[in-house]
């Protein structure tokens, strides 16, 4: 019983030391996309103004192959860190979602490209491996 006391104390100190150095950070750029707003875009029907009113103004307007393309993006970054007195581990995982709406010369949506990666962003502390 007497032997257990220092052991419990050591475990408590160890837990306190480990928790003291824990840092969890999350950073985002832009707003996550609403799937229903994207699926509401109908090819050959939805106008530029309707896209702007449902999703908002684009983050970038690109010109490609003589067409206007609206580019929307969203970034999500997760970063846990362990900052101990003598040893520091930190890892950051950033992923982006991108939405492109291609318009024809009359300002009608022709094509939509949407890629979602941020749902695979993870809090990973261990900096080794893939």
């Amino acid at each position, binding site marked *: 019983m007497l*032997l257990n006391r*220092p052991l419990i104390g050591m475990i408590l100190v160890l837990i306190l030391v480990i928790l003291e150095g824990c840092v969890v950070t999350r950073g985002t750029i832009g707003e996550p996309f609403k799937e229903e707003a994207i699926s509401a875009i109908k090819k050959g029907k939805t106008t530029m103004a309707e896209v702007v009113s449902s999703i908002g103004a684009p983050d970038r307007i*690109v*010109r*490609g*192959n*003589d067409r206007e*393309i609206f*580019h929307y*993006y969203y970034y999500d970054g997760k*970063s846990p860190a362990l900052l101990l*007195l*003598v*040893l*520091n*581990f*930190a*890892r*950051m*995982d*950033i*992923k*982006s*979602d*991108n*939405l*492109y709406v291609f318009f024809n010369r009359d300002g009608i949506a022709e*094509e939509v*490209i*949407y*890629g*979602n*990666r941020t749902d*695979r962003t993870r809090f990973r502390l261990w*900096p*080794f491996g893939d």
Partner: protein
Amino acid sequence: MTNVAARFLSIRSAIGALCILLLCAGCSVRRATLNEIVTPEQVNFIRIGQTTIFELAAKIGAPDEIAESDFGSLALYYWSDTKSAGLDFGAIGRLFLPYSPSMRLNKTGITPEQLQVMFDPQWTVRAYGFSRKSSDEPVIWFWPF
């Protein structure tokens, strides 16, 4: 006898913990990744003059950027892996002394990579290629010279 054995065991554990502490003292390992790697195997399906940007996006996701060049439109996929490691020799002193100056060796390697796909006016792939990449850097490599 049991008490002596237990005490010897605890002293040994304490010395072991101290050795590990000294070995790790001042080590810092940081890593940052942006997006997911696109491998050549993932874009094997691309047929020049046949595959469109929409088929490409359906298979590997939307590009990070679409840009216009003198030769046609480009789709760019970005990803990177940043590895940073450091060793602070002053950290050992800080365990025992109220003040110990930093004596730090650090190395950071940023490897931005990209896949570039060029399109003709019908958004069909005209050419594609990966950015050059040197060999994989180890995660822990603090020697800066």
